């Protein structure tokens, strides 16, 4: 092969690459960190679960149990390192850790735990993480039972050809009902309820059994050690000192430090400056063999030059075929972000660029709004992603932002038959200037206690959903499948679903297709001037209701001004509803004599600061919240 397998720390070549089995992995001892590990002693797996079902706590416990992290160093949820992740208890970026474990058979194993994001918005990242594994531990909360993301993740894992190992967590809780959860799991995966591991990540009960089951049931990798290198980039992040750090899974062949590497999707060639394991500390090594998981640093500084899902091969002896599955993550939801203070435009651009260093899925283009000035039209993977980005911009970059109501991308057929994609309602041509409009549909899946089926059907139908299968997981729990326009769920659908089901239903969705629909643009006029940021694309049948709702809401949200402010909703030139915010008549301090001057000035100053959250739209002062709050959930939606 002409390639030596190096462990630089060991200072010696170890093995010839053709055996794939390397010295130093003696029975009864751990595979050495200075040698390539025999594939039979490797287990690569992910934990997949619905949000809050205890994935991160289990990961922590596994690290503690295998000594990857001492109890003393243990921070709760070590893998969730971003502040926001910790706060919300969710994982946004996947992380990975190598665990050394001596199983009950006396053998030492290397278990690579590849953490996955826990939310539907990040399903692309989940699927990349799963592609790096042979098995997945499906964790279900003993109290809540199977939820929508449990199911969605289980399907992702099955589709990826993984061995799915079910486990029931939180059995220590008084309300735990592990038997019910087990029955639901059997309904999805088959098998026997008795084989399901029951554990508590909190108390540590059943953790040994989890590790034993992983060793026993997760198949070892079966890469070809003699084939040209193929390694999957399953995640990447930006480090201020080291540049882009890739997480990689070697499938075939060997990845050596110093090798010249070709990234097959981007066609770029970079040197492997450093490779190694995460324990979770960075441990540099000379070579990663087939089946191994680790990190790669190439010196690349721009995150978008490294694509998650790309296949790495050797530049000199490249593989002919890339690993399957690279796809550009596609933004689904779009929203305008505008600085309240127009002077902050550049600051916002810089902040977005910095955020993008760690979030290649974030996309934006400059947008100019007559109402809001200069800003950016941003594309997000989903609603949570949008919320997180906005919160990080405001919190970490100290920006004061106005966000417009989220919308989706429409496909407009122009008079000449060409199709253009529009991401902002303002860009929708008048009906005479287009042949048609198509909107994105999603396949949605709701898991709910059966008593809420009626209200959910009603909600879905109102939102133009087409109900498909209804599948009883147990007498009490139903899986409802339906197809629904994405635009109908991007805003308040999830909140409504939660309120109609007392919080018990869960939702997951995946993109389906584009469908023609009779859509119109409803404009909102303040004081006679259209406010582009309030425009929305809605179905013709819902336009009147939408117009009335919006004008009514805005009447409540816009404070009284020095003059009457008419609020109108219009389709094209036709006004469909109108409200008026009456002019303010009284805003005066009744008494102001010698004693009050200083106090009065302070009071007015405070009122003034409150007003900074206002945006001047033409001559009308509009509170920042109005841009989103106008569309907020209510009972009649």
């Amino acid at each position, binding site marked *: 092969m002409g390639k030596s397998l190096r462990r630089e720390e060991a200072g010696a070549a170890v093995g010839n690459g053709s055996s794939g089995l390397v010295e130093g992995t003696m029975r009864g001892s751990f595979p050495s960190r200075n040698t390539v590990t025999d594939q039979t002693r490797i287990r690569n797996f992910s934990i997949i679960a619905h949000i809050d079902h205890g994935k991160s706590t289990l990961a922590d416990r596994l690290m503690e149990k295998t000594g990857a992290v001492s109890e003393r160093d243990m921070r709760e949820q070590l893998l969730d390192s971003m502040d926001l992740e910790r706060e919300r208890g969710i994982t946004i970026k996947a992380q990975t850790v190598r665990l050394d474990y001596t199983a009950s058979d006396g053998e030492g194993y290397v278990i690579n735990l590849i953490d996955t994001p826990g939310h539907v918005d990040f399903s692309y990242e989940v699927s990349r993480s799963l592609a790096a594994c042979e098995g997945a531990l499906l964790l279900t909360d003993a109290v809540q039972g199977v939820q929508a993301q449990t199911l969605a993740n289980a399907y992702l894992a099955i589709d990826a050809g993984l061995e799915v190992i079910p486990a029931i967590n939180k059995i220590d809780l008084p309300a735990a009902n592990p038997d019910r959860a087990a029955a639901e799991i059997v309904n999805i995966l088959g098998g026997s309820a008795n084989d399901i591991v029951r554990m508590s990540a909190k108390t540590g009960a059943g953790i040994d059994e989890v590790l034993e089951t992983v060793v026993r049931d997760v198949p070892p990798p079966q890469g070809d050690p003699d084939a040209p290198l193929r390694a999957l980039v399953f995640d990447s992040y930006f480090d201020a000192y080291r540049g882009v750090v890739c997480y990689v899974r070697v499938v075939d062949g060997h990845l050596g430090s110093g090798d010249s590497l070709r990234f097959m999707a981007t066609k770029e060639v970079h040197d492997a400056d450093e490779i190694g394991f995460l324990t979770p500390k960075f441990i540099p090594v000379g070579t990663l063999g087939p089946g191994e998981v680790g990190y790669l640093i190439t010196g690349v500084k721009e995150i978008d030059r490294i694509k998650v899902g790309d296949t790495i091969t050797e530049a000199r002896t490249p593989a002919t075929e890339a690993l399957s599955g690279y796809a550009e993550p596609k933004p689904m939801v779009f929203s305008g972000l505008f600085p309240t203070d127009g002077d902050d435009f550049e600051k916002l651009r810089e902040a977005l660029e910095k955020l993008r260093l760690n979030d290649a899925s974030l996309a934006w283009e400059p947008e100019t709004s007559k109402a809001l000035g200069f800003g950016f039209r941003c594309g997000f993977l989903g609603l949570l992603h949008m919320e997180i980005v906005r919160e990080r911009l405001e919190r970490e970059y100290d920006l004061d932002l106005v966000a417009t109501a989220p919308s989706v991308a429409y496909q407009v057929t122009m008079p000449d038959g060409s199709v253009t994609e529009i991401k902002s309602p303002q860009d929708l041509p008048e009906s005479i200037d287009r042949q048609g409009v198509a909107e994105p549909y999603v396949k949605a899946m709701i898991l709910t206690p059966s008593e809420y089926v009626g209200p959910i059907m009603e909600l879905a139908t109102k939102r133009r959903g087409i109900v498909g299968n209804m599948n009883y997981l147990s007498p009490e729990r139903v899986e409802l499948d339906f197809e629904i326009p994405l635009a109908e769920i991007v805003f308040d659908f999830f909140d409504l679903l939660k309120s109609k089901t007392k919080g018990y239903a869960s939702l997951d969705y995946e993109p389906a297709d584009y469908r023609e629909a009779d859509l119109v643009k409803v404009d909102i006029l303040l004081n006679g001037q259209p406010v582009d940021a309030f425009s929305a694309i809605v179905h013709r049948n819902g336009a009147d209701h939408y117009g009335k709702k919006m004008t009514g809401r805005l009447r409540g949200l816009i404070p009284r001004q*020095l*003059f009457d402010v008419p609020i109108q909703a219009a389709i094209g030139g036709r006004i469909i509803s109108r409200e008026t915010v009456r002019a*303010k*008549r*009284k*805003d*005066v*301090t*009744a*008494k*102001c*004599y*010698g*004693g*009050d*001057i*200083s106090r*009065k*000035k302070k009071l*007015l*100053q405070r*009122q*003034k600061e409150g*007003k900074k959250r206002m945006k001047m739209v033409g*001559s009308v002062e509009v509170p920042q919240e109005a841009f989103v709050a106008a569309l907020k959930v209510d009972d009649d939606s």
Partner: protein
Amino acid sequence: MTPTEADAYSTSAAAYVHVPFCSSVCPYCDFAVVAGRDDLVDRYIDAVCTEIMTSESWRPLEAIYFGGGTPSHIDPLLLGGVLDALSLKHGISADAEVSLEANPEDFDATRATALRSLGFNRVSFGAQSFDAGVLVALGRRHQAGQIESSVRAARDAGFENVSLDLIYGTPGETTNSWSDTLSRAIDLDPDHISCYALTVEPGTPLGRAVRDGAEAPDPDIQADRYENADKVLNAAGHTRYEVSNWSRPEHECRYNLNVWAQGQYEAYGNGSHGYRDGVRFRNIRRVDAYVRAVESGKTQRSGNDVIESWDAEIDRLFVGLRRVVGVAPGPGVTAFLTSDSGRRLLDAGVVNMVGGRLTINRPLLTDEVHRCVIDLEAPECTPTQIQ
């Protein structure tokens, strides 16, 4: 009153004396007042006299105002003692306006005669309303009939300047009861009338009640009442000269004209605020703490603000714009007219330029104008000024 006359008050010397004692505290009141501490009255008045005698002497006072609290609640001789101290320390001009606030239930013929003979020549009654229901809602202890008898007592005792305070927009008040209050007030032929919108102040019993769901005054109804008052009072010969004040010709309150013209005024007593030699100062708010401070020879001041030149210009607009005559041209007015929010107010007709003066056209929107005024920035120095 001409603008020139109004502005001339900027050079007068005035003094405020606070008398915090009340029989009971009204639920809407957030002034520095106290009920049930009449045991402190003598010591308090001693402290006020001490404060006067230890203050820096000034020129003869042209306007003196005893506010409260309820000055009429305490022995007139004690108030006379305070006047003596003021006279000794600063002197009192022969034609000075000497005002006190009084509650109708306190003001009988004996008290009226005593106060008049001590030197008081103007009395301002806390009448508030002639509607029995509104008086109860406001926590007042008097009845409508007592307003009439106390005004008569004042006139009989020789008070040539009588003012009535009225409150409008109290929940429960009706259009008719407000009209009735106005006409009964006018029937008493006062020289001066103040009409105040009931204001909900946080921290007062009314504030807490509203916070807990009680009906709050409706600003639109209050605007109606205000406009009604202005019309009725004008017809009766009372001209508005400030946001909440109307008077017959030549009967404006001179003490307050001094404040609004950015004149200087001494202040004595707890919680009082004064302005002298470019410094705004305030006294300790609690009665007992104030008395102890004075008695022990410590400072009774709780704060000082030195008003620098641009702040003084802002203040000139801030207080002056409350007057119907508005303010004379100056750098503050220029800054206002060149600011975005100032121009908006001008375009919306809230303010106006009249004879070169900036005036408020819609007094009910004064706070809108004030929020703009407090943010005005000093103009850049011109090159010639730098040289």
